[in-house]
C-alpha cells in the first residue's frame, strides 16, 4: 500500500469512536436479553466453515478461460517448435494474475479481464543464450505486463506488472464502444459456462505452464436433469471430467479415463519412437522447399521472406498427419505429412492472398477500406487464377486476377456498387438459418440497417460513408445485437430475436473523417461563404487571416451526431484586437454555422 493510502487509512481509523459497548448492548436488547460486557472475551470464536476455493484462484482460472476462448485447441505452434504468441499471452496473463504485483493489482487485473476488457500483446522473438524467448508486452486496461517467456515451454522467466493511468483512460474510451456484458445476461451465462472447464483444469493442475500439461481440448456441458455442469478436458492421453454445482461452482465429483489409442501431444514436443515431431516436420518441409526455415526464422533483420509458419497436427488418434503452412515471399506453401514416415502426402503452392490484395491496391493506387481475396477452383494447381480485391473510400470495388503460377495479372475489374450492396455484403455472409420462432442473423442485420437508413439522414448529408456492417449474435434467447461500423459512425442496434422489433438503437458519431477531402468545398469557397455570411449579418470581419480544416461539434435533431468536418475561417475582428475569431463553415454543404470567438488571447 502506498504512503498516501496508509496515511488516509491511519487518519480515518483513528477517528473511529469507541462505541462497541453501546453496539453490543443494543444488539443484546434486540435479542431480548442483556449480556454482561465485562465477561466478554476479546478473542473471537472461530467456527469451522466449509473450505471454499480461493476467489483469486477462480478468477485466474476464469481470466485465462476467457482468453483461451480464442485460442485454437489444435496446438498451433510457430517455427522451430516454438509456442504461438497467443498461447504465450495466455501463459503471461495466467502468471500475472497469480504472481505479479500485490494482491490488489492481481485482483484488479483479473476483474478487468473478466469484465471483457481488451487484451493486446506484442512479442519479439529473442534468444537468452541458446534458449529462444519471447519478450512480451501485454496490456489489459491500464495494466502493462512486461515479461520474458521461454518460447518453447512457455515458462515465465520474468514478469513485471505496472499500471498506467493514461493507458487506462484510453482503454476505457475504447471499451465504451463495446457492448457491455452486464446488459446481456445470456452472454454472461455463456462465459459462466466456460468457468467450470477452468475449475476442472485448475483442480487437476492442468494449467501448468508445462506444455505437455495443456489440454488439447476442453469443453463444458450442462446436465439439465441434475442442474450441474459437466466439464471435460482431454490432456496427454486422458479425459478429465468434473461434475460442478451450477450455483456454488464447487466440484461434486470427478473422473479420469484413458483415451483409447491416443498417441498424444508428446509427439509435438519430444521425439517419440515411430513418429516425427513437429520440429522434424518443419525440417522436412524446409528441405522440400529448398530453404533453411530454421535460419530464416532466426533472422531478425526483417529481410527474411518468411512471413509466417504454422504447424498443426490433424488427428493423432487416427489419421496421424501433420500440416505445415508457410507464407514465404508471395507464396503460401501448404504441406501435409505422414506422421509416421515423414512422407509428403500433399504439397500445394499458391499465391499468398494478402499479396494479391496489396498488389490490387497498388495497381489501382487506391486507399482500401476493406480487403478480400480468394483462390478460384482447386488452389495450388498451375494456371488457376487468384483474385484480390479491395473496397476503396470512393465506394468502388477493384479486383485483379493473377495467374497462380506466374503471378502475371490476367484481368482487372472496377465495379461500382450501391451503398446498399456494400452494406449488405457482410450481411450476406451471416447465417440465414435460425431456430424455430426466431429471425436469422441476416434478417436482424437487415432490420438494423433499414432502421439506420431511415433515421440518420443527417449523417448521409454530411459524410460520404460506405456501409460496412458486422453483426454479433449475442444470444438467441433474448435478441440479436448488431454493430454497424462505418468510417465515421458507429451504430448499434438491438433487435428482438423473436419479433424482429428494434429494442434499442444508438448511433455514435466518431470524429469527422478529414482524410478524404474530395467532396469538400475547399478553402477558397469556405472563405467566400464566410465573407458573404458576414456581410449579410454582423459584418465583423476586418480581414481573413487563414482557413484551416478541422472538425466541430454539432447537434442534430434526428440523431446524436456530434462532430462534423468544417473549415475554420479565421479573421481579424472589428473590435477587440486581442481575440481569436473564426467562422465555422461546413466542409461539405458550405453551411456557415456561426462566428466563434474562443476568447483566447493571442
Amino acid at each position: 500500500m502506498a504512503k498516501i493510502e496508509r496515511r488516509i487509512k491511519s487518519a480515518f481509523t483513528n477517528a473511529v469512536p469507541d462505541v462497541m459497548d453501546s453496539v453490543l448492548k443494543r444488539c443484546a436488547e434486540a435479542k431480548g436479553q442483556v449480556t454482561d460486557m465485562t465477561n466478554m472475551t476479546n478473542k473471537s470464536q472461530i467456527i469451522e466453515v466449509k473450505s471454499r476455493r480461493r476467489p483469486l484462484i477462480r478468477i485466474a482460472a476464469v481470466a485465462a478461460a476467457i482468453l483461451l476462448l480464442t485460442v485454437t485447441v489444435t496446438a498451433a505452434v510457430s517455427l522451430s517448435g516454438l509456442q504461438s504468441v497467443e498461447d504465450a499471452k495466455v501463459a503471461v496473463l495466467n502468471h500475472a494474475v497469480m504472481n505479479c504485483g500485490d494482491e490488489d493489482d492481481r485482483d484488479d487485473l483479473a476483474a478487468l479481464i473478466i469484465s471483457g476488457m481488451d487484451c493486446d500483446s506484442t512479442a519479439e522473438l529473442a534468444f537468452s543464450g541458446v534458449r529462444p524467448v519471447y519478450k512480451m508486452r501485454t496490456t489489459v486496461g491500464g495494466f502493462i505486463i512486461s515479461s520474458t517467456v521461454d518460447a518453447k515451454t512457455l515458462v515465465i522467466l520474468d514478469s513485471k506488472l505496472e499500471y498506467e493511468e493514461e493507458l487506462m483512460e484510453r482503454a476505457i474510451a475504447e471499451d465504451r464502444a463495446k457492448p457491455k456484458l452486464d446488459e446481456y445476461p445470456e452472454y454472461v451465462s455463456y462465459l459462466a459456462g466456460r468457468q467450470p472447464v477452468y475449475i476442472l483444469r485448475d483442480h487437476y493442475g492442468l494449467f501448468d505452464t508445462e506444455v505437455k500439461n495443456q489440454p488439447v481440448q476442453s469443453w463444458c456441458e450442462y446436465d439439465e436433469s441434475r442442474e450441474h455442469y459437466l466439464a471435460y478436458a482431454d490432456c496427454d492421453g486422458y479425459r478429465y471430467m468434473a461434475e460442478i454445482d451450477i450455483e456454488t461452482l464447487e466440484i461434486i465429483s470427478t473422473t479420469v479415463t484413458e483415451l483409447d489409442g491416443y498417441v498424444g501431444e508428446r509427439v509435438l514436443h519430444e521425439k517419440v519412437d515411430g513418429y516425427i515431431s513437429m520440429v522434424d516436420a518443419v525440417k522436412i518441409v524446409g528441405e522440400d522447399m529448398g530453404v533453411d526455415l530454421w535460419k530464416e526464422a532466426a533472422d531478425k533483420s526483417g529481410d527474411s521472406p518468411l512471413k509466417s509458419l504454422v504447424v498443426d497436427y490433424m488427428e493423432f488418434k487416427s489419421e496421424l498427419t501433420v500440416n505445415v503452412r508457410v507464407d514465404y515471399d508471395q507464396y503460401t506453401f501448404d504441406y501435409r505429412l505422414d506422421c509416421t514416415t515423414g512422407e509428403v502426402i500433399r504439397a500445394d503452392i499458391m499465391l499468398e492472398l494478402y499479396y494479391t490484395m496489396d498488389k490490387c491496391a497498388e495497381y489501382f493506387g487506391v486507399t482500401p477500406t476493406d480487403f478480400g481475396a480468394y483462390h478460384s477452383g482447386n488452389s495450388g494447381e498451375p494456371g488457376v487464377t487468384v483474385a484480390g480485391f479491395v473496397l476503396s473510400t470512393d465506394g468502388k470495388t477493384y479486383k485483379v486476377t493473377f495467374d497462380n503460377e506466374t503471378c502475371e495479372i490476367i484481368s482487372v475489374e472496377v465495379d461500382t456498387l450501391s451503398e446498399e450492396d456494400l452494406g449488405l455484403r457482410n450481411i450476406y455472409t451471416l447465417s440465414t438459418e435460425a431456430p424455430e420462432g426466431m429471425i436469422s442473423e441476416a434478417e436482424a442485420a437487415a432490420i438494423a440497417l433499414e432502421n439506420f437508413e431511415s433515421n440518420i439522414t443527417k449523417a448521409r448529408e454530411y459524410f460520404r460513408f460506405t456501409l460496412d456492417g458486422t453483426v454479433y449474435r449475442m444470444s438467441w434467447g433474448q435478441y440479436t445485437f448488431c454493430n454497424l461500423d462505418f468510417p465515421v459512425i458507429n451504430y448499434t442496434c438491438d433487435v428482438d430475436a423473436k419479433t424482429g422489433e428494434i429494442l434499442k438503437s444508438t448511433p455514435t458519431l466518431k470524429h469527422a473523417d478529414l482524410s478524404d477531402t474530395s467532396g469538400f468545398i475547399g478553402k477558397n469557397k469556405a472563405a467566400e461563404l464566410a465573407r458573404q455570411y458576414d456581410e449579410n449579418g454582423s459584418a465583423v470581419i476586418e480581414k481573413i487571416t487563414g482557413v484551416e480544416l478541422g472538425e466541430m461539434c454539432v447537434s442534430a435533431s434526428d440523431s446524436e451526431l456530434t462532430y462534423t468536418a468544417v473549415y475554420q475561417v479565421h479573421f481579424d475582428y472589428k473590435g477587440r484586437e486581442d481575440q481569436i475569431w473564426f467562422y465555422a463553415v461546413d466542409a461539405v454543404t458550405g453551411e456557415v454555422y456561426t462566428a466563434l470567438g474562443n476568447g483566447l488571447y493571442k
Partner: protein
Amino acid sequence: MAKQVGTRELDAQIASIGNGDMSALAALYRGVCSGVYSYALSVLKDCHDAEDVLQDTFLDIYKSAASYKSIGKPMAWVITIARSRCMMKLREKKRYISASAEDFQGLCDSSLSPEELATIKICIENLGEDEREIVILHAVSGLKHREVAQILDMPTSTVLSKYHRTIKKLKILLEGV
C-alpha cells in the same frame, strides 16, 4: 482499535453471530468498525451521523447474520448494509450536510493528531462524492476495486481509473500538510 481480518475469519464471525454469539459480534466490530465508520463519514460528512450509522449497521448485521450466505465477500456485505443505512440517513435528513469545523473538532477530541485531522478534512472537503467513496472503500474499508464497482454500480475500469486519479489528487493536496 481496529485490525484487518481475513475473509475467512469474517465469514466465520458472521456465521457465529447468526448463531447468537455476541463475542463474535465484538470481534467483527473490532475488525471492520473503521471501514464502516470511515465509509459512513465519507458519505454523510458528519461524525455524529456516521457514528449512528456505525451502530445501526451492526444492529442490522446482528439481525440478519443468520440469513447471511457466504459468497466470499463478507466485507462487501457489511458495507452494503452500511451504505443502505447511509442512504436512509440522508433521506431522513433530506439534505447533504457539509462538514464544518465544529464537526472535526469533535473528531479532534478523539485524540486525532493535527495531521490526521487535516487529512480527513481534505478528503471530505476536496473530493467529489464518487472519489471519496471509492478511495475510502478501497484504502480504508479494504474492499477490492471490483467489489467497490459492484457496490457503487460502476464499471471496474472506471473505479480503477477514478481511484488512481483521486490518489494523485490527494498527493498534491496533502503535500506539506
